[in-house]
């Protein structure tokens, strides 16, 4: 089931431009709260997009992606608290370097294995990071976490800041577009990656590792590279999430959060390019409203996951595509 067959490039660009335009206009109609929720959705979408380079395109299920998300977020918090640098661009730079280093290190260990060993290894390594964040109270604040002071934050090299009255509204509406632009860039970059010869090679590895090796693909090195790119995308998501949440705690390093990233991707469908994006945004709404409406929100989420896996394994996007295909044939 190749992930690359689809509409032609011009048609795709039109669809993408249309989607971007809708996303850009949305905040005018949906109000402050929904806009904020959508920012969360977009940051998670970047995380899931990165995660899916491993799952959907390389065939590796990481149960430890919380590590890279957390690394991004904690790096932002450290930069602001200890270096007193409040420029978001510098934070992004620092966070990307940190998540690059971390995913290069962890990836190097993990890609020596595949299948379930890979998953468990990724999980175990992520928990090392969690325990460090949890235990080193004087550095990381332990479970209290570190505050990311939004009123000191500046965007676009100091051009925009958020002080004084109405700062919160200003932040939400400004930050939405900031994240949206980065999200669109991330989508474009990922699209180029998966359609490049490198991306094709990853899919060849996914479909048949031995054959890919025979035709000269350096399997382990490519897996490692995919791991690093994946980690950096998820790291970027964590970086953008930090000022939005205003606080980083070890919760985002704990392994159930890795499970949520997997959940998002499967919800949208990991065999398609857009699946993780749709899944992340949908999951964010699902979780917020499940938590708000019931004490038993985990039950709701668990049931959704089980039903998705049993009945709709291709996810939201896969199912819709399938239905559309049927209609067209008729």
């Amino acid at each position, binding site marked *: 089931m190749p992930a690359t067959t689809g509409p032609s490039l011009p048609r795709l660009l039109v669809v993408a431009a249309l989607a971007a335009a809708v996303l850009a206009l949305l905040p005018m109609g949906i*109000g*402050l*709260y929904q806009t*904020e929720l959508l920012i*969360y959705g977009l940051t998670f979408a970047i995380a899931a997009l990165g995660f899916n380079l491993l799952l959907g395109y390389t065939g590796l299920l990481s149960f430890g992606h919380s590590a890279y998300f957390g690394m991004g977020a904690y790096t932002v918090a450290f930069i602001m608290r200890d270096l007193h640098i409040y420029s978001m661009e510098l934070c992004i730079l620092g966070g990307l370097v940190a998540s690059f280093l971390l995913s290069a290190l962890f990836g190097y260990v993990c890609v020596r294995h595949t299948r379930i060993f890979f998953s468990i290894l990724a999980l175990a390594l992520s928990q090392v990071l969690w325990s460090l964040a*949890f*235990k080193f*109270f004087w550095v990381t*604040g*332990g*479970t*209290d*976490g570190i*505050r990311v002071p*939004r009123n000191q934050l500046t965007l676009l090299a100091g051009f925009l800041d958020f002080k004084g009255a109405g*700062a*919160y509204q200003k932040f939400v509406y400004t930050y939405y577009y900031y994240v949206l632009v980065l999200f669109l860039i991330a989508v474009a970059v990922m699209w180029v990656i998966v359609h490049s010869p490198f991306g094709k090679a990853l899919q060849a590895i996914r479909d048949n590792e031995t054959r890919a090796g025979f035709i000269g693909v350096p399997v382990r090195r490519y897996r490692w590279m995919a791991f690093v790119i994946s980690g950096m995308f998820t790291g970027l998501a964590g970086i953008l999430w930090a000022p939005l*949440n*205003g*606080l980083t*705690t070890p*919760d*985002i390093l704990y392994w159930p959060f890795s499970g949520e990233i997997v959940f998002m991707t499967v919800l949208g469908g990991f065999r398609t390019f857009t699946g993780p994006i749709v899944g992340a945004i949908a999951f964010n709404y699902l979780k*917020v409203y499940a*938590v*708000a409406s019931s*004490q038993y*929100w985990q039950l709701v989420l668990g049931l959704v996951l089980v039903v998705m896996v049993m009945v709709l394994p291709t996810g939201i996007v896969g199912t819709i595509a399938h239905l559309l295909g049927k209609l067209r044939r008729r």
Partner: protein
Amino acid sequence: MKNPVDRRTFLNSIGAMAAAATAVPATYFAGPRPAHAAFKPKGNIPDKPFKTGHITFLTGPANLLGEPGRKGHLLAAEEINAEGGLLGKRKVETIIADEAAGTDANVKELRRMKLSEKIDLFTGVVSSGNTPALGPVAEELGVLTLFNDGCTDFLFDKAVPNPKYVFRVTNIQSADGVTSAVGAAKAWPEAKRVASIQPDYSYGRNVHEHFMLAYQKLVPGAQLVSESWPKLGTTDFTAHITKLISDKPDVLICGVWGGDYVAFYKQALRYGLFDKMKVATTLAFGGQPHAIGKDHPEGVLAGAHANYFFTFPAKGRWPINDSFVERYFKRWNEYPSFESDGAYSALYLLKAAVEKANFLAGGWPDDDAIIAMLEGMGMDTPAGYLYIRPDNHQGYKDTVIGMTKNDPKYDFPIWDPNSILTIPIRDITAPPSWPKPGSSHNESTAAANWLKTTWLA
């Protein structure tokens, strides 16, 4: 500011003041009293419900504290609604969410409560890890907030140094460690070897630091010989207990709380820990009173978060407490805890502020008017006189602690009436405008700096 007293005079004065405080409650300033229906509102009051958001632990080991908080809040809401609501018109409606969902989820839920449900007031919160996260969010959203616990000094020292919307009703946390230190120093003045077991997050860190600071001033030569930092939610304390025993302390300071404390004391009992050392706690009496069994040893210094335990002020001494305990028991078939008092008093504090503002200006007061009334407000509560300091929006009341004792009237241990100490809060906490951390000093809290520099010369 008074001149520093020496430690002997200070320790001797504590018992005497306790006697005075219990004997003449009538000298307290009489603030607005709960269950006084006589207030006549002025002007036009809308009758739309007054929406309140309440986040507290509904599940997990911390539920022992969350549950009574929720019950205290609901009791106050029901009583106010029985009189027609706030200013006789606005019924209190409460949305409740589970604090155990985690800090990030709590932050999101508070935003949802304000932006989507349009709550008028936010209350609750047990964990000290959560108020510093939620406080800045509440300020940012501009939602009037009365935390009834989560009493870490960090909230107003660092996270929200200049609060506008955020208030907190229960005592400041540094006073908790100091209160246990005073209680321990008075009971066991020769106990010099100190061991400490604390939950590994800001509450445990805070108790440890302030207890040690105060105790080393009260008991010269006292030294720390053992420390343990179990994670919150630990169920197996056996290795910690063995370590504590092996370090041969004279006294143990224990900040473990909720279901964790129940697990701790039951296991400690089987290892004979209580026979090997004196034990001082900050929160043994912090959960639902019936959570502690009669197997709990007597003579343990049982903290109630330096706030309240329902047997004090004793029956007949303080009518507000008598009637509160009676009504609470009638409604919930159990006895209240300090969280019950905190959540209950928080809502009555709001009621008093709304009525005062209405009395002055008529109509439904806006948030600014309510805040102006809350700042500097004093009120009689079941726990005694509560004062909201205007500079940092923190509630203060005299702290209280006692020793465990079994009483045939109850299925659980209570405070030995002869052992109860109350300590004037002004004697153990930094005064208003004391420099906050990061300004002229780098102590973890303003109180720590004050204790170090001026307390007990």
